[in-house]
């Protein structure tokens, strides 16, 4: 029986977490997993947090990941990485996009952005990877492909073959963006 896997994707509206979730779900489906995905996106377009939970396994019941039980957290934004860290398993992996997006309370001076969030995550989590996905995506030809760079990094760490990932990517990304996204995926996969 295959081990079940809990993957949490966290970010801010507009960062492409939903597309990344769809690629992941497609890949998991192709690999023969049972899947549950939970998306709370009501405020996604208005700068709110976006969290999607993906659970894979032989048979999955709950669509929710419990605190302390995520095998991987894919954080599209630094502070969100810190916010959702309590969901990480003791030996889980957290992949962090080295990007800060200040929420309005920070912009208006009512709150302060924790500049040390990466250090704090590194102190607390045993496996932390930090990547400048935005710059890698720019080099690939489109800053919007940062999500796919992160997908590539996630893909390397999951028991799903690269062929399946590429197939899923092609199935879920609009055709005119496929080249830049394949490049972005490779970059992330090889990190």
């Amino acid at each position, binding site marked *: 029986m295959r081990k079940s896997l809990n993957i949490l994707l966290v970010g801010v509206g507009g960062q492409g977490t939903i597309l990344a979730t769809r690629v992941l779900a497609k890949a998991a489906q192709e690999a023969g997993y049972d899947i549950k995905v939970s998306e709370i996106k009501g405020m996604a377009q208005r700068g709110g947090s976006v969290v999607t939970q993906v659970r894979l396994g032989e048979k999955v019941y709950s669509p929710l990941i*419990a605190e302390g039980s995520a095998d991987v957290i894919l954080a599209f934004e630094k502070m969100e990485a810190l916010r959702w860290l309590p969901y990480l398993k003791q030996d889980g992996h957290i992949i962090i996009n080295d990007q800060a997006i200040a929420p309005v309370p920070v912009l208006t001076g009512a709150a302060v952005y924790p500049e040390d969030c990466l250090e704090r995550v590194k102190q607390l989590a045993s496996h932390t990877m930090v990547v400048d996905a935005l710059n890698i995506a720019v080099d690939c030809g489109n800053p919007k492909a940062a999500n796919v760079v992160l997908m590539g990094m996630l893909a390397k760490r999951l028991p799903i073959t690269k062929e399946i990932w590429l197939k899923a990517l092609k199935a879920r990304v609009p055709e005119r963006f496929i080249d830049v996204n394949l490049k972005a995926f490779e970059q992330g996969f090889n990190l």
Partner: protein
Amino acid sequence: MKELLSGNAAIARGAFEAGITVAAGYPGTPSTEILETFAKYPDIYAQWSPNEKVALEVGAGASIAGARVLVTMKHVGVNVAADPLFTLAYTGVNGGLILISADDPGMHSSQNEQDNRFYALMNKIPCLEPSDSQEAKDMVSQGLEISEQFDTPVMLRLTTRVSHSQSFVEIKEPSPKNIRPYAKDPLKYVMVPAYGRLRRIFLEERTAQLKAYSENCPLNFIEWGDRSVGIITSGISYHYIKEALPNASVLKLGFTHPLPENLIKEFAAGVERLVVVEELEPFLELQIKALGLTVQGKDLLPSYGELSASIIARGLAPLGIAVTEEYLAQPEVIAASETPLPGRPPVMCAGCPHRGVFYTLQKNKLVVSGDIGCYTLGSMSPLNAMDTCICMGASIGAALGMEKANPDMARRTVAVIGDSTFLHSGVTGLIDVVYNGGTSTVLILDNRTTAMTGHQENPATGSTLMGKPAPEVDLEALVRAIGVKRVRTVDPLNLKELDRAVKEETAAIEPSVIVVRRPCALLKKAITSEPAEVNKEACINCGICLKLGCPAISRQEDKSHVTAIQCNGCGLCLQVCPKGALVKRGEENA
């Protein structure tokens, strides 16, 4: 073929497969995607109605005329539709009718957390509760059969986690679409008292038949396991139970009104102790207690918010029953942070043309009677420009009430409401203002869409759900026809004009309407121009531009800063800057 579908997409697919040909609803999270998805299937008709009451009335007519019908709304929408619903329960149906009530435990996007299963109890209609997408799809066809067999509307009650979670669904071919013949039947469809009394008796007979049906309904089933505890559950909680107490005996109820009393008694007799695990209110628990059974539930688990495997494991562990260790242990939660992190509240978008309205209202220190939609975000800091928000359309009636209670408030109170919300249920409030001699000022913020739920068409946008051109409601002509004499239209990107309009209309001792018109910044038809930027030498760091609460503006190194990629060049910050330090890019020397 299997597809990974959200609960909402599964409902739409189920409706298509089951031969539903007419669907109506009003957008509302978490229900909105059902109708949007259904509208894309061939050979069906789907529409947004101005509100949920009309949607259910359209559904009632379509059913009486012989079609299978789907009506969708969020939980609070059922309050609006409650009037036709209570009597539709009497008339029954011709073609099967499914009413979707999408409840929102945890209040992810709602103003309250009502448990709409009680509507089924009070209306004496069947209630179905799916726990995942496959069940959601299956329950549409099963619900239609129940509806037609027992001559009743059927409530299919979703929750956010079922609506917005994805799981595998078996896709089938659609069955043929049959329209039942229409036959005039006043005794059944004309609810005058004499006929209503006859149907009232039918209601009791039907409930008895539905009870008997519920006993053998395959949607209610027992999974025997460890008999030291028996769990009765419904909806998403079933999946949490399978994880938190995988060995427990479970009675899973998919048909939750009327309840299968004998099945429940049989289950109770087979276990040592009985626990009900349900989200929100003790709907099942109260009825099971009324059967004279000893049962626990809300003494162990919260009656508000969402449940989870962890909450259930921790709540039930003190009973001494076996729960999954992983969920029981306060997990070795990695303490993320001693100090709480800054929140990430939703905000009005960068470039939202209506941001300036709230800036202006706050500057004029007005009492703002607010409403549902994007504009509720005007209540957030730093705009802080809202005093009340109750339900769809409440802003106008509440403003009138404030004025009647305290005449001093008349000159400093405004109601603020969006275009779709005004057409939903603001119109009647405005009629009340005119009729009862109110002098309120109503701002209709017309962004040419139903924005908060993700840009649905409405009667003022000129298009329908199915993409057909439609006449646009002329808001100015409508409010004039109601009897408002002071009606003006303002562009919210012109702060001076907006300020003057607000000052003049609040001062006027008669009802007034300001139609504030600009398309939502996220629409394709929104106008954008060069982003703003800060002339650092001119900026005196007064922070006035920050009071707009625009996510594109921040303070960096004691100067204001505009993030160009976010800014759509609305120009509001240029208008509020006292030093002219904010300029359009490329126009520094203009």
